[in-house]
């Protein structure tokens, strides 16, 4: 077993006829992911890379009742609607790649998904990959190697960087989740950790955090309460970012005094989680943890 995603995923691509949607459908198919249908309202009846396109998720699910997962490439203004559509159609995992969704919209659909029992990954995220099994996302598949390390990350490129380093040193991955860089995301560190804790195929976890918010502090708290028991190594980006300045996306604003680098590092180290100085120290620290 792996976390959230394995060979049983049957995927609907929402926004499949767009540039990004079509391109990544091809890459997902090449990786071996079972993409069963695409949706673009008003373009029902066409095909993209051999995948049939429908006007609605409802219709796609009716024709492909095995569908259980959705990935969304719909532009920001229409993406919230696409998320509601996927939830109401009964899909249990929805990966939202779209960047630039207003945070009030995200807040609402994430609350709605929770009520309906759907897991949202993202928005503004690279997606999820269980190397060798399936990829529902936009990450370059070849970087990732199958193995026993879970990776959960707030940053896209750092995920690639660190996963590549891990792979080169023989530390393949069970499931890698880029949870997204927006202030509100569907799946948080602690929610992902609950899943990794239960996953027999994950032996240890790499947490890739950022300044801002308090997800890292909450992860530490979860470890303190004994609810996550596997070895963890963390890296937190933004140590040298000045407070109060926007670092490219809203996920990195420091507000109300919480979420500083120091606060996160202290919280994690106090529960025995080593925090890497640079991304390049992660594999070494992880080996040390695994040796214990």
């Amino acid at each position, binding site marked *: 077993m792996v976390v959230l995603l394995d060979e049983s995923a049957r995927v609907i691509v929402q926004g499949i006829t767009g540039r990004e949607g079509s391109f990544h459908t091809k890459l997902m198919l090449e990786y071996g992911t079972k993409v069963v249908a695409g949706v673009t309202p008003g373009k029902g009846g066409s095909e993209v890379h051999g995948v049939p396109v429908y006007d609605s998720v409802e219709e796609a699910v009716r024709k492909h009742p095995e569908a259980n997962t959705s990935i969304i490439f719909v532009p920001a203004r229409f993406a919230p609607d696409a998320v509601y559509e996927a939830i109401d159609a009964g899909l249990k995992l929805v990966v939202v790649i779209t960047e630039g969704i207003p*945070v009030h919209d995200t807040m609402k659909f994430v609350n709605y998904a929770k009520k309906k029992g759907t897991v949202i990954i993202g928005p503004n995220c690279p997606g999820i990959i269980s190397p060798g099994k399936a990829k529902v996302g936009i990450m*370059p598949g070849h970087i990732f190697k199958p193995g026993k390390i879970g990776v959960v990350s707030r940053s896209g490129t750092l995920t690639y960087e660190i996963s*590549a380093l891990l792979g080169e040193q023989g530390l393949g991955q069970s499931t890698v989740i880029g949870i997204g860089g927006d202030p509100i995301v569907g799946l948080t560190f602690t929610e992902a950790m609950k899943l990794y804790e239960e996953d027999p195929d994950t032996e240890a976890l790499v947490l890739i955090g950022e300044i801002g918010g308090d997800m890292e502090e909450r992860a530490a708290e979860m470890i303190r309460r004994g609810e996550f028991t596997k070895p963890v190594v963390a890296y937190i980006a933004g140590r040298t970012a000045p407070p109060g300045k926007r670092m*490219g996306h809203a996920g990195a604003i420091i507000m*109300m005094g919480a979420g500083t680098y120091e606060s996160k590092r202290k919280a994690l180290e106090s529960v025995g989680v080593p925090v890497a100085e640079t991304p390049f120290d992660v594999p070494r620290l992880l080996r040390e943890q695994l040796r214990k």
Partner: protein
Amino acid sequence: MKLFEFEAKEILAARGVKVPPSVLVFPGDDVAAKIREAGLEPPLVVKSQVLVAGRGKAGGIKLVKSVEEAVRVAEELFRKPIKGVLPGALLIEKAVEHEAELYAAITIDRSERKPVVLASRFGGVDIEEIAKEKPESIVRLHVDPFLGLRGFEARRVGKALGLSGKLLISFASFLQTLYSIFEELDADLVESNPLAVVGDEVLPLDARIIVDDNALFRHKEIIEKRRVEQAGEYTEWEVKARQIGLPFVELDGNVGIIGNGAGLTMATMDLVYSFGGKPANFLDIGGGARAELVKKAVGFLLDFPKADRIFMNIFGGITRGDEVAKGVVEAVKEKGLKKPLVVRLRGTREEEGRRILEEAGIHAYTDPIEAVKKVLSL
């Protein structure tokens, strides 16, 4: 997008909230005449309209006892940069006698993924200090985003602050107005600090609104109405960067930084720092950047005087190494290699990118540690 104090107060006033009488003055205005026209009697408060935090402590707010003093202080404040930025306008406001100063805000609790009301009886001073020292004095109330802040919830917050009678009703109604602004304007933050108590009523002495940049397409009126341009929020080079669409933040060091993705760019800054260097900026070319954007970014840092060297760190996922390399080569061709440039390149189409760079005489590193050591040794 941060709104200026005067913009935030206009929005409050348009929703029926009483705010102190005031007048907005621009450089070159006859300040004394403007004060008279507005019918304002001293004592007055002259406030620099800048969008940086800690404006008061940095000397951007002055109490004056006469119109003459107001004119003198206004001249002074127009010339006084607050944390590096000059004001585009000053707000001259009636100084209001008041009995107490509260704090009230609506923002988003990322962890609960819900709107949260924050309030305190100890407004006026640095609320972050209060939050640290007396966390129990901050009242928090989470709001169901589908229901909004209901009246009885707003009153519950007021009761928790110890308010009663008409003041409780006034405070609760003010909170509901803050919430309606928060919701209608897609705000990240709507805040009043201090929120004065004057008799039975609350009166916002200061107000802040930050609108979610991603939602600005729904709020074109805010941008259209803006009377004070970029001034007041960004440094000269940040303004330039915004004009050409680059997400650039100016910092204090000398090492120019370019990365792809906010996380990797921050990590690159951290790497420079941990090897003893100081970043001059943050510049993220994002995911899937084309040659054109890379050229623009590299060209910008070649011009940016604070950066005496450039460290570019790219790990290509959807970003392609060949596109990055082409952009770098074109920028150097156009601007000339005015300062040392160290490139670290990995990921998608790494080899092609490396070849293009080498052909143009630029060495591309694979190992970021080696690269950072190199850039700091120059």
